[in-house]
């Protein structure tokens, strides 16, 4: 089976205050940047084998639902990319 890397991008929901983003806004303004808003999140890269891109995407979405994001406070998006490894070359 081919190897995929799922990039899971997690961000706080719009209604959740993001004090880290606010602190970064303040720091960027202090550097002279005209900032309207900053929101922070996190990126999780998961490598795994899957039958095809669609299967990889489905599995990554299940990981997001089950563990990687907390739906009470976060939303997430998944990008999937096939990678070539030595074992699969």
């Amino acid at each position, binding site marked *: 089976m081919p190897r995929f890397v799922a990039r899971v991008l997690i961000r706080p929901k719009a209604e959740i205050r993001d004090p880290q983003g606010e602190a970064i806004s303040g720091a960027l303004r202090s550097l002279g940047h005209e900032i309207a808003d900053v929101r922070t999140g996190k990126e999780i890269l998961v490598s795994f084998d899957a039958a095809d891109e669609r299967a990889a995407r489905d599995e990554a979405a299940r990981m997001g639902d089950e*563990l990687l994001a907390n739906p*009470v*406070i976060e939303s997430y998006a998944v990008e999937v990319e096939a990678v070539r490894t030595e074992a699969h070359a």
Partner: protein
Amino acid sequence: MTRVAILRYPGTWSERDFQHALSLVEGIETEIVWHAECDLGGFDAAIVPGGFSYGDYLRAGAIAKLSPGTKELRRFADEGGAVLGSCNGFQILCEAGLLPGALVRNASLEYRCDWIHVRIESDRTPFTTGLRRQVLRMPIGHGEGRWVADPDTLAAVEAAGQVVFRYTDAAGAATADANPNGALANIAGVSNRAGNVVGLMPHPERCAEALLGGTDGYRIIANLAKAPHGTAAAVYR
């Protein structure tokens, strides 16, 4: 005798403090149980103490929610067993879906280690019997204690009387200054709908004897000696 299990996950650090505090209450016997081989059969209540389970990796409590101990805790809670989570224990219970809402970074971004006051809003739990409207002084120590929920959940939790603890000043007024972490509606602790599962950010186990600077935590944990034995479902539902 009320038999109380104290859960220990990798990274739990308040289990011995709870065991010591509960040893001050007559009629309670305790056992620290390792999460991986956790059997709550024969216990009347379970405590999920504070700490940094699994290093707080991903989110506080996110990995602990997958442990066999949490699965057993869910079974125990469903049968009406009394469950109290403090600090990281509260975070675990929210992540596991046993309590509503979630706990996120303090609005100040600072770790807050302080004495605070909470007003007890509900006595419909095994831990707050007879304490409604009382203002208790307890310590906190957390960086991620800001309770949040979507507006519908907040309204439902308020309407169902599931807010158990609210940050107030010493006189019992829920002001913005009395809120140490920016929690919605000054909420410091909530229960499930049935009332048998309770979580709070403050540490009752750290203020159960005068030597530690306060005894208000004792008033919460001492209630366990009066908790109904076996399944409490009939009483709290």
